[in-house]
């Protein structure tokens, strides 16, 4: 049982045509196993989180009751992307597991929506948001090392509180970028093989081998997204992450949650007292790139 399906091209060349569809189930089961292991770990084994230092009363005093986290534009992008991603996953994989319907048109339209929203997001995050807030920094790496040592019972100082995004969030974002850009770039080219309103069909744009590899990459990234989306939805529903999920709906998170999880020095929030002088330590706190 191979991971790829192969065929013989008209020129006698053996070319990959797509992934083996059992990988859909591999990804779904892997995602499910992750959720079960994580939920069991959190329920029975995880210790209370401990962070180094604490917010000074002076810093805490200026924090508003509702800490702004995601702008309206960023939230709209997130939910548009989510809707298109779900549409893409359902239209791509339901027919492969036996639910047959007219999926191609919905799939490419959702793909166009995702592509446009991602292009918007890249421009928006690059020029209007704090681009680097979603990328791991040195502190994340040092703190991750501390957390790993502590996880295995070795001595290490407690890590610092998080900046705007925890390291796990940043890593997830990185993996989503890889998978997302893979499906988008391959998907845009694959649109030249179906009838759309954008350009005339041209199945001979690339060689059979290049097309085959493109379909394989599209499929691998697509099935990868099944597990990734399952994980994302799972964390969005977990009770301890509810404040973060809420912030993606309402745009803000509670002051208490902010002070408990986030370091005001790493994620500077504009307060009423600081707005005129903009006493930021790092980054531009009102913005986000996630």
């Amino acid at each position, binding site marked *: 049982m191979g991971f790829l*399906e192969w*065929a*013989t*091209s*008209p020129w*006698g060349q053996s*070319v990959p*045509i*797509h992934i083996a569809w059992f990988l859909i189930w591999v990804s779904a089961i892997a995602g499910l196993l992750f959720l079960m292991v994580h939920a069991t770990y959190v329920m029975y084994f995880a210790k209370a989180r401990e962070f180094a230092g604490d917010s000074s009363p002076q810093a805490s005093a200026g924090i508003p009751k509702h800490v702004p986290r995601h702008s309206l534009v960023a939230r709209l992008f997130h939910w548009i992307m989510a809707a298109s991603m779900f549409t893409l996953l359902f239209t791509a994989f339901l*027919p492969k597991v036996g639910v*047959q*319907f*007219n*999926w*191609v*048109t919905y799939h490419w339209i959702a793909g166009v929506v995702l592509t446009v929203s991602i292009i918007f997001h890249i421009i928006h995050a690059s020029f209007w948001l704090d681009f680097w807030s979603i990328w791991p920094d040195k502190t994340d790496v040092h703190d991750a090392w501390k957390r790993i040592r502590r996880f295995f019972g070795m001595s290490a100082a407690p890590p610092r509180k998080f900046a705007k995004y925890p390291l796990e969030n940043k890593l997830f974002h990185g993996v989503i970028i890889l998978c997302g850009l893979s499906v988008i770039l391959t998907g845009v080219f694959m649109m030249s*093989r*179906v*009838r759309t309103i954008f350009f005339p*069909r041209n*199945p*001979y744009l690339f060689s*059979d081998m290049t*097309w*085959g590899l493109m*379909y394989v990459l599209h499929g691998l990234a697509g099935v990868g997204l099944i597990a990734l989306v399952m994980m994302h939805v799972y964390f969005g529903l977990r009770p301890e992450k509810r404040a973060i999920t809420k912030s993606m709906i309402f745009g803000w998170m509670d002051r208490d949650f902010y002070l408990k999880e986030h370091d005001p020095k790493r994620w500077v929030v504009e307060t009423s007292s600081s707005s005129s002088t903009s006493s930021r330590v790092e980054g531009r706190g009102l913005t986000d790139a996630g």
Partner: protein
Amino acid sequence: MAVIRDVMPAFELFQPSSVADAQKLLEQHGPDAWVLAGGLDSFDWLKDRIRKPKAVVDLSGIEELRSVRTTGDGIEIGAMTTLTEVVNHPIIKQKYGLLAQAAELVASPQIRNQGTLGGNVSQDTRCWYYRGGWPCYRAGGNICYADTPEGRNREHAILHADRCVAVNPSDSAPALIALDARFVLRTPKGERVVDAEDYFIGPEIDITRLHILQPGDLLTAIRIPSTWAGAQFYFEKIRDRNVWDFPLMNVASAMVTSGDSIERIRIAVNGAAARPLRLKAVEDAVRGKPRNTATGEMAGKLAVQGAVPLQFNAYKIPLMRNLVKRAISGVEEATWAS
């Protein structure tokens, strides 16, 4: 690529004598099984060694699949009834002549003696890229070789193409749709009866099949209700060689008139898409209208709305328009227009 070797790949041959046994075998072997009716489509695939099933279930020994029975409301034709038997059956000729006309235009007398009604409606497409063993969409690949600027697509689809542009080659299918027939399937979950038009599917639903039969399913009979018995029928088939060929396109209609006006009508064409198309919009548009040239022309124009020709099959648009026009207004009324 297809290399005709005339020696079929080895498979296990089963010759059940009842539908129950056949279905048990089909369930047992699932996707590895191949249903053999008259064998006219099957032997191409097997001799070209493009399809290599592990098990072939030959239905020719099942008597219950091979008869025409009258029922309370019409007739029931066993799926293994040969096309010649359909053509010559007195009740079919008398009341459902549309089917007899269509069946009589299938291929040659020898082929009609061997070919079955079930096989005719369930046969695979004639797209030569697909039948040649090329890894196209329909064969599970990721390309349509026919829908390219250089592709040989003279016989291919002008409507409802979705990546694959192959067409359904059946002559009896549009006649059965026009007669409002129902197809009786035996599935692992029990008997299922579907409208003729729902038996066929396009590439947008499943790009690898022309009909809804899944592994383990069996088409056992076709029921034709008396609704259209004795109506005015029209069947016309256009093909390259009039002695023996698959249709470039065909049209079938059943019509009941009241005076000069069309009281009710069912009309279907095949060879225009991957499934035979019932032209509901045309039926609605002409109902109550006089049966004349003007109505026929209007119907023809309506029928081809949304047609997208390929590089070499633009002729199918006027062909379809004219066939529909002739089916509505009658051959005498309709002058052929390009």
